[in-house]
């Protein structure tokens, strides 16, 4: 129970949780190294909170183990686990003031003099002077910071954060992100951080896991996942991707050849997750560049031509939709660096890319192109 006991890696082994016939978490196995920052990303309802609740002890796993430093804690009562949670719903005690809310964990462990620690914690979350207020007298973002302080003050071996910054405005969220990251590195607490904000996950985490329907789709360093997604779900959940349906007939040296509507493209074999049959050729919108004619395409690039159907100016970039010969609309993000050519709807244009930036994913034979519309938030400008 005391945080002084030697910490260790957090390991989930074949963790499963079913509610009746519904499987919320499906045979989940992963390791979070001690002191690392682990982000769990996934669509609403994919089982993130349920996973955290099993680690905290608030939900009993249907099967599987939760191991902390090789000790199975899955059947340990929550108050005996060296784990604290920042709840998605805050769950602040309405009858206690802010000071007592933050001091709650320390007091329950019999620590007498809590004054200094509580004040330090409150100033860390920028709530000095709020000690005597009740939670109901705070704004949503302030309550969220109290929830953060209340968990963090205990310096647990593992801190579980269930969308802890969701209610904060952009500026405060960035500040808190930096603070969190600083605390995490300084104190060496293992953080398991659930978030919807992919940018937050990518900037803060050492490891990102993308969850879908109770399973981990892909796990790895942020750049690794972004640059070379493992599945179509990941490719479109983390940022956007243009996934073009094609067939591959196998390799040619270090490259794989893909046929898309009669045109052939090549992708390096190391950036491929399938080497036979139906595939998706993936290119991120910001990896596509637009020029007016095929003459301008640099050597070694691959290209596709089409017609611009939409151009949206979003400040840092302009987002174009390019309709290909077979009717699919590809997203193209062009940085507004000032040197770019501008295109207007109706213009003919050629999109080119470096084959080293493309990737190849396996595809069900009946799946078509998968591109995300221009309405989706691009990475880099999300709120």
């Amino acid at each position, binding site marked *: *129970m005391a945080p002084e006991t030697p910490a260790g890696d957090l390991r989930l082994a074949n963790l499963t949780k079913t509610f009746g016939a519904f499987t919320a978490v499906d045979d989940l196995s992963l390791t979070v190294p001690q002191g690392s920052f682990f982000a769990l990303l996934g669509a609403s309802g994919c089982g993130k909170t349920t996973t955290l609740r099993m680690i*905290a*002890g*608030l939900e009993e796993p249907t099967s599987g183990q939760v191991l902390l430093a090789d000790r199975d804690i899955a059947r340990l*009562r*929550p*108050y005996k686990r060296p*784990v*604290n*949670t920042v*709840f998605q*719903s805050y*769950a*602040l*005690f*309405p*009858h206690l003031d802010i000071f007592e809310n933050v001091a*709650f*964990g320390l007091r*329950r*462990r019999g620590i007498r003099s809590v004054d200094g620690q509580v004040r330090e914690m409150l100033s860390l979350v920028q709530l000095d002077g709020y000690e005597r207020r009740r939670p109901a007298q705070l704004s949503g973002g302030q309550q969220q910071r109290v929830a953060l302080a*209340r*968990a963090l003050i*205990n310096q647990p071996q593992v801190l579980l954060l269930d969308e802890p910054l969701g209610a904060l405005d952009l500026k405060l969220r960035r500040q808190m992100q930096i603070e969190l990251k600083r605390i995490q590195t300084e104190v060496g607490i293992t953080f398991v951080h659930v978030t919807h904000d992919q940018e937050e996950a990518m900037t803060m985490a050492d490891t990102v896991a993308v969850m879908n329907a109770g399973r981990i789709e892909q796990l790895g360093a942020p750049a690794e996942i972004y640059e070379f997604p493992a599945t179509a779900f990941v490719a479109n959940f983390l940022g956007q991707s243009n996934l073009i349906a094609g067939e591959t007939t196998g390799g040619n040296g270090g490259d794989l050849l893909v046929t898309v509507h009669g045109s052939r493209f090549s992708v390096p074999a190391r950036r491929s997750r399938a080497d036979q049959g139906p595939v998706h050729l993936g290119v991120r919108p910001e990896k596509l560049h637009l020029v007016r004619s095929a003459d301008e395409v640099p050597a070694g690039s691959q290209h596709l031509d089409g017609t611009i159907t939409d151009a949206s100016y979003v400040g840092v970039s302009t987002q174009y939709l390019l309709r290909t010969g077979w009717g699919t609309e590809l997203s193209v993000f062009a940085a507004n660096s000032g040197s770019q050519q501008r295109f207007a709807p109706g213009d003919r244009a050629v999109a080119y890319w470096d084959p080293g930036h493309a990737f190849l994913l396996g595809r069900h034979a009946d799946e078509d192109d998968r591109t995300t519309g221009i309405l989706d938030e691009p990475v880099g400008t999300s709120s």
Partner: protein
Amino acid sequence: MSALAHVPTASGQPVSPPPAARRGRHRLLPYLLLLPGAAWLFLFFAVPLVQLAAASLYDPTGSLSTGYALTWAFGNYPTALQAYWPQFGRSFLYAGIALVLALLMGYPLAYAIAQKAGRWKNLLLVCVIAPMFTSFLVRTLAWKTILSDNGWLVGLLRDVHLLGPDGRLLATPIAVVLGLTYNFLPFLVLPLYASLERLDYRLLEAASDLYASPLKTFRRVTLPLSMPGLIAGTLLFFIPATGDYINAELLGTPKEYMIGNVIDSAFLVRLDYPQGAALSFLLMSAILVVVFVYLRRAGTEEVL
């Protein structure tokens, strides 16, 4: 520019204020709504109370036949208290013990119904209220049967030697306390239930996440958050239990009589109106003092 005309002003008020007449009526409305209740309270509470106060100061030598005179006889109070202090003490003692018993039963019951009963919740609530469908008198008479000397309960207790061969329950303080406990239990359970029903189980989860054992969680979260219901329930139980006389009358003997029995007989048997009124006022002020002290204490405890 024309679009701006519809923008609310800074104070949040619509641009065109309501006519003054309508606002005036709005201000009167709360008082109009209060009127029926206030009139009722005045006619049937305030006026009789003043009458009772006057009666408590009547000349004690008067009688119904000779008539009473208001002689400001404050001596009625010490006289009454001197004569009946044991019944006074008994009232508070019995009601106090009954309250403790009712809390021991009622709190877990209310908690279970509110937090654990799931779809049985409504049925269980009806069970709590069901006894109220029959009259208070009938319920107490039923207890008389249950506790009677040749009833199964006394038989059982004698068999296991918890009671001697001639031991009895009826006509003992135990019977009166049990009767009080039973009769007023719903008044304690219902407000408690209302408080516990609103208790967010996620707070209990948060407490256990923050190193609070179930016992500490109860002490630090559940109990303080159910305080409003607990206070209301305790008062609704304790006040009528203290003034009750049916239980002592039916389940006890004159040795168990409470102050309610004395007031009852003063008004209806001995026809000693000044004494009955004085005792009523004494009971009322004693209860007010107890309630006041209790609220002060309970109030500060919640802040701690």
